[in-house]
Structures are given as structure tokens and as C-alpha cells.
């Protein structure tokens, strides 16, 4: 049962040390419903944070709640309601996909028959229906990724934690995996935390992004913010002679970006729709028109840069 009012994860001033090295520094956050991205350089503490949330590591200081359970009560039972998709290659030898998936379901508390039925269902869902009776160790790396997703789904958790979900997959597989993730999270059905090195993946799937660096959360972003724009700068793609076009525009700053699009800085007294009029008069077609957006990449680089300066 997904409760919409309680927050999913609450952390207050969590600190953790590895052999005297401070891996997590006073992290406080509140993760609510929806899909969160977790980004950061290597060694930022993302994996450590996930291990703390899963109850494998106890924080040296601070506390919090995961799915309503206080951390000091022990988080082992909470794993029943969490689906974890690890980054590394992991499977159990000698088992075919159905048996393995059902087995994992049983370990999470599903009755055996239910687990088997549900195993078939999730294997169909992730696209492994034709190979589900094959031994899992014969799978290609793309198939293994899907299998890991199935293992995280079989017990229908309330929260999923995915670590590099598209790792090792080819372009077709990546697209399908991202589609699956979006489908699972659609209509608010599932809460997720996705850790990835690939900004494009995070942009496609997450509503909020947490950026970590050196053991702290340095920035929280809404991906929606990337659409709310600086409405005076527009990307314009045209077919035709740009010089004619630019001549008709008032004195404005114009650059061409790597993709051949014009970035036009429009003054306050020039309504953007006038661009179409000027284009028509210049005999030029506008084929691409968009207010300039901040990308996740920009936000990330800024956040890390600022945290280094601090």
C-alpha cells in the first residue's frame, strides 16, 4: 500500500565513517512520492547512502525513517517493501529465470504458489517471456539487467532503488529499460530512487534530482525547472540564409550552437512571435523554435563547481 501522505524517506543529520574517512556528512533529506534521481561523482557517497537506507550500514550519527520505520529499530523488515536493483552482475547459479524470480519473491515473504505466478507475470512484463525457462547464467548482459529489474519487482514493493539500471545495455535495450521504468512509475504507482552516471537517463525518468558531492547533498532540482525558462533567449532552427534573417532582426545577440541552431537573445520590447514575421519576410522557414532551457548537465556542473568552491 503506497501512502501518499507519509514521506518515503526521512533522514536527519546522517553521518557515516569508513575507517576514519567521513563518507557521509550530516545529510538531511526528505524523499516523498515520485521518482528521484541521485547523481554525483564517484566517491560522493551515493552507494553508502543507499546501503544506509537498505539497512546494511548503521549511521554513526543522526537518524531518520524509511517507509515509516525508524532507523534505529532496524531496517531489515523494511526490505520487504523495497525493491533493490544492484549495479553489479548478480544472479544465483544453476537456476532458470522463473525459479530465481519466484525464489526471491518467497524470500520477501510471498507464498510459494503466488511467487511462481507473479514471477511469470513480471518476466513477461520486462520482456523475458521467451527465455524465462533458460538458465539465468546463459543470459546476455541486457537480459541480465531486465532480470534484475524483475527481481526487484516481483514482490510489488512500495519503493524501488535502482543503481545504474541501463548499465551495459545497447541503445535499443536502454530505451526499453527507460520505458519500463517510466511505465512502472506512471500514475504515481511506484516510488523510485535512481542512481545513474548518465544524465540523459535521469532527465528522462526523474521528477526530482539530488546531487551529491563529498558526502553531502549539494543540490536538489526539479526537472520541471528545466522547462521553466529564461524567456528572453530562444533556440531557433531555420532553413534558408541566416544572414538575411538576422539582418531583419533588431540589434540582438545571436550565436550558433553546435547543432547549427541559433540562440537569440531577444530584448524585452521584441515579442518572440515577431520572429516568424521576420522569417517570412526574409524568405526563411522556422523549423525549430524553443525557449532556451537549462539542462541537467548545466545544473550538475554548477552544483559540483559550487560545492568545490565551498
Amino acid at each position, binding site marked *: 500500500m503506497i501512502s501518499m501522505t507519509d514521506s518515503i524517506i526521512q533522514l536527519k543529520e546522517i553521518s557515516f565513517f569508513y575507517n576514519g574517512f567521513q563518507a557521509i556528512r550530516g545529510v538531511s533529506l526528505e524523499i516523498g512520492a515520485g521518482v528521484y534521481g541521485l547523481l554525483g561523482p564517484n566517491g560522493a557517497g551515493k552507494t553508502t547512502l543507499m546501503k544506509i537506507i537498505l539497512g546494511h550500514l548503521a549511521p554513526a550519527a543522526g537518524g531518520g525513517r524509511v517507509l515509516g520505520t525508524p532507523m534505529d529499530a532496524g531496517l531489515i523488515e523494511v526490505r520487504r517493501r523495497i525493491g533493490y536493483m544492484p549495479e553489479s552482475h548478480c544472479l544465483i547459479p544453476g537456476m532458470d529465470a522463473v525459479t530465481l524470480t519466484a525464489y526471491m519473491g518467497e524470500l520477501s515473504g510471498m507464498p510459494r504458489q503466488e511467487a511462481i505466478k507473479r514471477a511469470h507475470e513480471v518476466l513477461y512484463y520486462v520482456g523475458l517471456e521467451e527465455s524465462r525457462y533458460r538458465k539465468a547464467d546463459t543470459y546476455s548482459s541486457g537480459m541480465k539487467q531486465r532480470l534484475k529489474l524483475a527481481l526487484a519487482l516481483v514482490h510489488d514493493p512500495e519503493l524501488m532503488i535502482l543503481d545504474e539500471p541501463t548499465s551495459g545495455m*545497447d541503445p535499443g535495450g536502454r530505451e526499453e529499460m527507460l520505458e519500463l521504468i517510466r511505465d512502472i512509475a506512471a500514475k504515481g504507482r511506484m516510488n523510485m530512487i535512481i542512481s545513474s552516471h548518465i544524465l540523459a537517463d535521469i532527465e528522462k525518468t526523474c521528477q526530482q534530482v539530488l546531487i551529491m558531492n563529498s558526502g553531502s547533498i549539494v543540490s536538489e532540482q526539479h526537472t520541471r525547472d528545466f522547462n521553466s525558462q529564461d524567456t528572453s533567449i530562444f533556440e531557433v532552427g531555420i532553413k534558408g540564409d541566416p544572414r538575411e534573417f538576422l539582418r531583419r532582426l533588431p540589434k540582438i545577440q545571436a550565436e550558433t550552437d553546435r547543432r547549427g541552431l541559433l540562440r537569440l537573445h531577444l530584448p524585452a520590447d521584441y515579442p518572440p512571435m515577431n520572429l516568424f514575421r521576420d522569417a*517570412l519576410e526574409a524568405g526563411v522557414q522556422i523549423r525549430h523554435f524553443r525557449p532556451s532551457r537549462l539542462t541537467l548537465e548545466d545544473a*550538475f556542473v554548477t552544483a559540483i563547481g559550487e560545492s568545490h568552491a565551498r
Partner: protein
Amino acid sequence: MEPVLEAQDLSKWYGNILGVSDISLNLTPGIHGLLGPNGAGKTTFLRLASGQLKPNRGRIRIFGEAVFSNPGLFNRVGFCPENDAYYRGVNGGDYLSFMARLHGASPTEARERARKALQRVGLEDVAAKAISAYSLGMRQRLKVTAAMLHDPQLLILDEPLKGVDPLWRVRIIELIREFESQGRTVIVSSHILPEIESMTNNIVLIHQGEILAEGDIQEIRGLLDSHPHMVSIRTPHIRRIASRFVQDNHVLTVNFSDSARKVVFKTDNRDHFFDRLNRIVVEEALEIEEITSPDDNLQAVFNYLVGRK
């Protein structure tokens, strides 16, 4: 202009298993993205290009010279393989110095090159640490900079960003573009299409051992006749705009997304479509928030040509 890499009817098979079949290719200086599904022949092609395999048929030449059994060629070619293999017990700095010496540098020059190479990828602080202690991302950065160490004219990179964190992904892409801007050639193979797009517009798509497409992404898209172009318009007047196009024979489908305030058209004649669109917008003073072409990107080209499900 003489192509940097030239393949003619290049074929390689392993018994029954087909690696690549009759590949012909001419690559000029610049950055070329190499992509394809797993098992498509990309790895075989890269191995042929880096001299690890001998063609069964046809030929492959770099700078006009045959690749196989031509070690001298590799003074001008740098290769960064995908696999994670490294010498145990060696530290980063020594490894790079060693590589530089293999390319003929003197001991002092080698040290200097190694130092600069480490700086380029932010590994100067860990130069004295054993490579086995590096994280995956750090080892990857080491491999990339090792491939560039001897200033090659052609750089071949196989999944150079695997395991690299977001910050360094951006920086390495910049590094590659900077490298190319000095007049050199780079072939980058990757599964992550948005990253290829941020590096270059030129791609080579391999599937089932053959080249399906080669060249500029937009040009390739333009050649896909069986896939009419999508144009997405975000506007408060989605249905009004749609009504202006419904009777146009060049408009094949119209899709509405009320929640997103978007109308998406498919047209087989973009010139005609945009002509009309620009006219209508001005004549009727319509407000437009956004015009984009959602399938004018590499992922769409890949999907159309390689065909999922």
C-alpha cells in the same frame, strides 16, 4: 581528400559466425560515432581497425596503409579498448611513462608526457597509487588519456565513458572535441546515443554485420522515406492549427496531447509543411510556444533502422 580510414568489402567471420560482411567505408577527419546493437559487428569492426584481427576478405586501410601486421602505423593511431585490463602492481604514472617510452619517447620526455596526460584527466593526485586501487571510472580515464598520449592522428575509443561519473563524462567529451578541433580524427563507439550526439553529427550504424547508415544524422533521417517526419507544436491553439492542416495531403497523421498542449504531425514533405506553418502563424497571429522535431535525433534513427519489436 584522402580518407583517414578506408574499408573496402571488408569481411570477417569466425567459422559459421558472421562478424562483419562486405563493409565499405570512407572516413574523413572529424569525429565519427560508431553505434549498433550488441552482437552487431561493432567489436569485430573495431578489432579489424585496430589491427587485432586479419580480414578474411576485403581490406581496411588507415592513412593509406594496411592495418594488420603494421605496428608502425600505431604511432599515429591511439586505441582505447572497452575491457578493463591493467597491470597489477603498477601505478598510474609509471604506466603512462612506460606507454610513452613504447612509442619512442626518451625517459624525460616520457615522464613529461605522462604528467600532462594525468593532468588532462584529473588523475595527477593518484599518479603514485596502484592502478588496481583506482575506481572503475578512474581506470577508464587512465585508458582514454593513455590512448592520446602519443598525439595520434586517429583516435579509436571503444565505450570511453563506461563507469565514468557525470562530471568527467562532460569533461572527456570536451577533451575529445578539443582533440578533434586540432585537425584529428576520432572514432567513438558508444551505446549512449545522447552522448554521441553531443560529440558529433556524423555516425556509422552497424547491424547484423553490415553498415546500415553512415554520415550526418539529419541527412540520414531525411533519407528514411518510410518514416514520415514528426513535427511537434506546443501552442494554446492545438486544434485550430490542426484544422489548418487536416486537408493537406502531405500531412499523414495528426496526434493531440491535450495535457501537454501539443499537437504532433507526421508529414512526408517538410518543406511544404513548414512553409504553410510559418505562413499560417503570421497571417493568423497565432501564439506558438514551441516547435520541435521529436524524431529527428539519433535514437529515432536507430529505432527506425534497427527496429525494436
